[in-house]
């Protein structure tokens, strides 16, 4: 594994862990006794620290270590969890996130002054929770050592030294697996004091046989640490567990243990014994005793028929029985985790994109094949190509499904935002989430975060009133921001709502008049008036806060959403609340389209928008020359004559059809010459050159190899409406002049 790649994995994993940590922390706010959540937070911090240590990211390790200590105390119930602590831990989480981001940007980067200052501030705050530890330590130490005393063997036969003895033999592949043996020892030093280290080069082969990429070293370490237990020490080596042989002897172990150790280790026994004496683990006398015991033990072992390792260890009192249980539990958990992991595969996004592209090409090639098959009159070939197209369609759907993610993850991030912003604003605001399981394309999800963030902040700052105003209006003091997502005719709708004061129509109208965006005579619907707040530099806020009010954000929101081929509209009722509806296409790659012809050109509309198709008969055609609407079973259906709209100059065809499309609850007709039926449409962007073109959202390639344009129905309707208004205004002006 390349180290860089491993570092990337670390960054990705850390971010995920931090996210999980945040979620659990926020969960703790409502249910502080949730032990699972506390454990999850602790585990996240622990893993980040551990993996950080592997990469020598000392900044992260040092900071996370302190956090972990505090968390450990929370876990053991020594420090009660409360709002302040959660807030502090959230800031700590952010700080770790910041450090991770810095490493992501530049793995060798040192934190700058500002970051460092934040870190120190947080550490100081954390210290207050640790300071308690010192005061309490005499009590807790006895309390903790009590159970340990119970298993520590009686003084007879134990060694005098009070160190842990760790003997460590690294496997040959440790370096190749991207682990640095030294990093572990250095990390161990963080938890206590390494009293003595002896490096054992015994396994080192002769120079010609040596592989410089293999690790041949072993270490004998004497370690002194207050309050560490065996699990903690084992935890240090968790990441190389598979790659090393680890033996840990607790303080005051029996001499037999040392004997066993000496026996089990591959190195020369006398040499080892000397080592142990030198390092202070054993006294000379103890060593002699141990070597004497060796004979008896050897006889014993030969009789023993491979007993279970756990039993031996307990019997020998190397490990405490509860530790064995804990380890077993851990193993089980690890297995479960593995089972879950195997259900998910992490794939690089560009690989997926490539697959989608290829599927797109296949769809086009498939369409070309079907076209050719239709020209020949070979039924067998027809059959074959139709099977093929069905399969292609299924492959397309499954491939696109791969890119679909639930919007819930994006929504959940707002728990934190709402919490923080409501604290900043001094308002009591809650968040309710609906439709978190609604799926949409990953590329859309990525880009929708910023606009949503802006809208949520806006709702909280401008929408929801202060508590006293709310009480006066007879609403609950606690405001609510609502996030909702659902599917509607081929698009996904994301709503950001609040139960605040709503928009003031008069105020917006007046402001727009003042800015010259509209004229006083214009008769605008509510939705149109509310839509004005998306204009650049439009703000009715009397004061600019650090959150919003400058009149830039909503303009950016609209642009971002339009860049995703989406639309945004506002529904608001004064005194009751405001809801912003964002409508986005489900996918940006391949859609089911409906193909139609105007003159020699072909156009595609998303099939989900098509309601029905009707033929325009001769009478209606004559009638519709004058006005642009027809009577559709008793309702008025306005339509757009694409031929006129696009100024198609070819001969008017003999027959015309109306395609009835629906978007955002609005129906409209598109008059076309020819209906060409369903078509799997691979969306090809038209590029920057056509970026300003309204009414056409992209292009696609037909089976014949020709390019067809994809219509942007909402923009078309809007354009037609504004053109009508313009024409009307012009003719009125002319009448006045005349």
């Amino acid at each position: 594994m390349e180290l860089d790649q491993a570092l990337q994995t670390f960054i990705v994993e850390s971010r995920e862990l931090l996210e999980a940590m945040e979620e659990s922390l926020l969960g703790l706010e409502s249910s502080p006794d949730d032990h699972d959540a506390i454990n999850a937070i602790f585990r996240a911090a622990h893993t980040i620290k551990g993996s950080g240590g592997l990469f020598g990211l000392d900044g992260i390790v040092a900071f996370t270590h302190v956090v972990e200590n505090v968390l450990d105390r929370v876990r053991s119930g020594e420090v009660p969890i409360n709002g302040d602590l959660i807030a502090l831990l959230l800031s700590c989480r952010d700080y770790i996130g910041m450090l991770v981001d810095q490493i992501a940007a530049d793995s060798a980067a040192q934190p700058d002054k500002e970051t460092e200052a934040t870190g120190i501030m947080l550490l100081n705050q954390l210290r207050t929770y640790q300071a308690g530890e010192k005061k309490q330590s005499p009590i807790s130490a006895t309390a903790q050592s009590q159970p340990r005393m119970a298993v520590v063997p009686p003084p007879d036969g134990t060694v005098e030294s009070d160190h842990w003895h760790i003997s460590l033999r690294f496997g040959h592949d440790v370096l190749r697996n991207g682990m640095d043996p030294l990093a572990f020892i250095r990390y161990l030093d963080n938890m206590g004091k390494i009293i003595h280290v002896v490096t054992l080069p015994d396994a080192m082969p002769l120079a010609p046989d040596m592989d410089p990429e293999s690790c041949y070293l072993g270490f004998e370490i004497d370690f002194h640490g207050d309050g560490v237990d065996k699990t903690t020490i084992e935890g240090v080596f968790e990441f190389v567990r598979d790659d090393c042989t680890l033996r840990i002897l607790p303080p005051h172990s029996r001499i037999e243990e040392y004997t066993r150790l000496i026996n089990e280790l591959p190195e020369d026994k006398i040499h080892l014994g000397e080592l142990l004496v030198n390092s202070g683990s054993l006294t000379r006398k103890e060593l002699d005793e141990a070597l004497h015991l060796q004979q008896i033990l050897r006889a014993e072992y030969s009789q023993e028929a491979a007993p279970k390792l756990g039993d031996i260890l307990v019997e020998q009192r190397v490990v405490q029985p509860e530790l064995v249980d804990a380890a077993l539990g851990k193993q089980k958990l690890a297995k479960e985790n593995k089972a879950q992991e195997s259900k998910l595969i992490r794939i690089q996004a560009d690989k997926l994109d490539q697959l989608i592209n290829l599927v797109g090409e296949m769809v086009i090639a498939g369409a070309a094949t079907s076209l050719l098959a239709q020209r020949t009159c070979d039924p067998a070939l027809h059959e074959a190509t139709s099977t093929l197209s069905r399969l292609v369609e299924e492959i397309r759907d499954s491939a696109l499904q791969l890119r679909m993610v639930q919007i819930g993850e994006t929504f959940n991030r707002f728990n934190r935002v709402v919490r923080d912003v409501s604290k900043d604003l001094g308002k009591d605001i809650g968040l309710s989430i609906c439709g978190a399981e609604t799926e949409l394309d990953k590329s859309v999800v990525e880009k929708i975060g910023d606009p949503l963030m802006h809208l949520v902040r806006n709702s909280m700052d401008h929408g929801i009133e202060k508590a006293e105003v709310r009480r006066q209006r007879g609403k609950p003091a606690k405001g609510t921001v609502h996030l909702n997502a659902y599917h509607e005719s081929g698009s996904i709708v994301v709503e950001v709502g609040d139960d605040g004061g709503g928009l003031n129509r008069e105020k917006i109208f007046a402001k727009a008049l003042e800015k010259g965006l509209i004229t006083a005579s214009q008769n605008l619907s509510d939705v149109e008036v509310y839509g004005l707040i998306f204009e650049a530099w439009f703000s009715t806020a009397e004061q600019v806060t650090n959150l919003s009010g400058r009149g830039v954000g909503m303009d950016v929101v609209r642009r971002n959403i339009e860049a995703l081929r989406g639309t945004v509209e506002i529904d608001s009722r004064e005194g009751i609340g405001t809801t912003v509806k964002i409508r986005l296409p489900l996918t940006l790659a391949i859609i089911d389209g409906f193909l139609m012809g105007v003159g020699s050109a072909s156009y595609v509309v998303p099939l989900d928008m098509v309601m029905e198709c009707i033929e325009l008969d001769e009478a209606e055609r004559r009638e519709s020359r004058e006005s642009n609407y027809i009577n559709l079973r008793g309702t008025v259906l306005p339509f757009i004559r694409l031929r006129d709209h696009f100024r198609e100059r070819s001969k008017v065809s003999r027959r015309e059809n109306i395609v009835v499309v629906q978007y955002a609850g609005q129906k409209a007709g598109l008059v076309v010459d020819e209906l060409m039926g369903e078509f799997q449409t691979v969306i090809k962007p038209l590029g920057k050159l056509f970026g300003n073109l309204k009414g056409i959202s992209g292009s696609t390639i037909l089976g014949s190899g020709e390019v067809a344009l994809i219509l942007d129905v909402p923009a078309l309707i809007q354009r037609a409406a504004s053109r009508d208004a313009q024409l009307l205004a012009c003719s009125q002006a002319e009448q006045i002049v005349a």
Partner: protein
Amino acid sequence: MGAIVRAEQHAEAVGNEEGQSQHLTFLLGGEMFAIPILNIKEIIEYGHLTTVPMMPAFIRGVINLRGSVVPVVDLAVRFGRKASDITRRTCIVIIEIESGDEKQDVGVVVDTVNEVLEIPRAEIEQAPSFGARIRADFIRGMGKINGKFVIILAVNHVLSIDEMAMLGQAGSAEPEALAPV
């Protein structure tokens, strides 16, 4: 869609930007122009063009170039002249344009492509400030071929995506203002 000529874009032999001297010459409305071949990806037959409505007249439409959709510009209209008539010898020259950080392919309609010529640097004169009947910033230099001047086009200006998109916006905002043909 037969590729008549495929000019290898990464022709190392041509050397760097400064020393480059190979140019493709072509005819447009009877006048000869040249483009440095480093910018040229390929030359294809004219055909299968899809008109994009509501765009200015110099954007003829889009074509399918092996799966990607490429806009096609009528150079004559871009220079403010009459649109080229389509003949048997009309070609689309695919040119790679750098726009910001991205690269974009643009097709250019020309009447006939002539040949690839070596124009030594010494034979390239500065553009005249006026008199060439096209915008001065479109001209990279005047190359001398057999004693006659050929306009070497500054493709990044002639086919500036930003400028053309802006003109497109003006065009689609006031559709009536478009010159009827």
